[in-house]
């Protein structure tokens, strides 16, 4: 499966969904979908690397944790991310993510994300790979 991401509608907010031939790839695509809620990921240069780690008792909570960790890093570093390399272990995720400082003139960020919710939260196999998704509160 060629990895890709998409958004899906939620009554008040927006859903992020990632597809990949591996679970880790699907997690990476969900992260791209997260960035795309704020800005076109193509407009974000992968200049600076940040290491991200998280742990959770199951895959679904790990996905929410991963996205929440990115939301946190974006907030405190004032950065946007456009490239993600995820490694998954049992109940643990380790990633390198690349991005750049938010440039209001160039990026025109549309919205700030408050958090990744557990609404429509899923990590499941599909033909040829994995799909992962959740709704984010903006």
């Amino acid at each position, binding site marked *: 499966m060629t990895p890709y991401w998409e958004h899906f509608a939620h*009554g008040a907010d927006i859903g992020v969904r990632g597809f990949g031939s591996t679970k880790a790839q699907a997690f990476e695509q969900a992260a791209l979908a997260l960035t795309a809620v704020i800005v076109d990921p193509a407009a974000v240069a992968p200049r600076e690397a940040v290491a991200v780690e998280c742990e959770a008792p199951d895959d679904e909570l790990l996905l929410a944790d991963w996205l929440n960790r990115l939301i946190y890093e974006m907030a405190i570093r*004032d950065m946007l991310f456009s490239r993600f390399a995820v490694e998954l272990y049992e109940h643990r995720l380790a990633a390198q993510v690349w991005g750049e400082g938010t440039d209001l003139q160039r990026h025109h*960020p549309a919205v700030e994300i408050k958090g990744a*919710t557990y609404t429509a939260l899923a990590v499941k196999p599909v033909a040829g790979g994995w799909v992962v998704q959740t709704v984010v509160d903006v």
Partner: protein
Amino acid sequence: MDLQRLNCRSEYEWEIPARGAMRVPVVIFGSEALLRDMDDKVYEQAANVAALPGIVGASYAMPDAHWGYGFPIGGVAAFDADEGGVVSAGGVGFDISCGVRCLRTGLTRADILPVQRRLAEALYAHIPAGVGSHGAIRLDARETDAMLARGARWAVDRGWGWEADLERVEEGGAMAGAEPRQVSPEAKKRQRDEMGTLGSGNHYLEVQEVTAVYDTAIAAAYGLIPGDVVVMIHCGSRGLGHQIGTEFLKRMAIAASQEGIALPDRELACAPLNSEVGQEYLGAMRAAINCALANRQILTHLVRQVFSDVVPAARLALLYDVSHNTCKVEEHRVDGRKRRLYVHRKGATRAFGPGHPELPKSLQATGQPVLIGGSMGTGSYVLAGTRESEERAFSSACHGAGRAMSRHQASKIWHGRQVIDELASRGILIRSPSWRGVAEEAPGAYKDVAAVVDSADAAGLARKVARLEPLVCVKG
């Protein structure tokens, strides 16, 4: 929503009787037309809330209810700690104590029109709004804890506001029981640059005109006359609240499975009130309420600075400050007995009626102002709490128009520039750093706020007092 699935209790009150895992019924307020258009997810989510341990009375949905997270947005539910009741981080939401504050200006439309553009530019320049905007105030660890403990009272002590403001803020400006030590270092760090910022999404600051009065006596007591100009601020506890919500949602999801609480939806993550996680959440959540109150107080100070520069005759007095994402301990009479309950309001406004002991003397005769934010192009409303509201839904009313479509759909239909131009042609000046943000918040993406407010009034949740229409909107 299919009305066949509901019992009609009265023209504006509908019931889903308790069945299956539900411990109490669901009661949805609204006209037949609003309920027909209401998302089926409201039915499902309100019924899920009705199944939570220790819930008292009913699981309520306000006329503006829509699909939320775990709880519907517009959901109200009260829990009794002594009956195994729970507190839910999902039931309060990420934007803890998001709310609305309304300031009277002492000015009229005629005073504003000659300086409308200058005022819009000055507010936009002076009020940090949108993604990546930073406030000018930096707090060290000690000051952060002081702010988290004392809310708007802390801000007034530091010179950001007037002593008289405090009686017009719920809880007198300082939420009791806040425990700054329960707020993680990450949450405090996330707030570092965000004191005195508006945020983004549906948050805004508007200059509005009173265009209609429905209850002249209460409006006069509130100081609202047609043609008067007010300022409305909508925002919450910023990054700190979002981080607390995120962290406790996870802890409660894990704790609930350990406690054997079966959750039909993980977003309903909750913990018994009489548990360690439950108590720690209450301490942190109350600190976040104080953060929101302090934030809206600082924004008030910034707005006053702008007005004193642009229209020196202005004197901005606080009408009221309400929070609509909270869990608060309140006494309510249930089946003739007074009980101490933990009332969750997720996208719902507290609406204490006349004579309520928690209201200041100046509002005893009228009841509490209930502030309902509309969308950019439409109106906002001031309502007043009623005595009967307590028996309707633990003294609660709606909080806004409620979205009629997703952001995704809205941004496909409208372009931000087009929305701004169209509103400008109607005399409404929008200032925002993001066109896409404006498109996602286009007036057409929201339900008819007038229909929501009419239903709240007719259902006895709150009494309609005045309608406000925007002249300037700073959109985050």
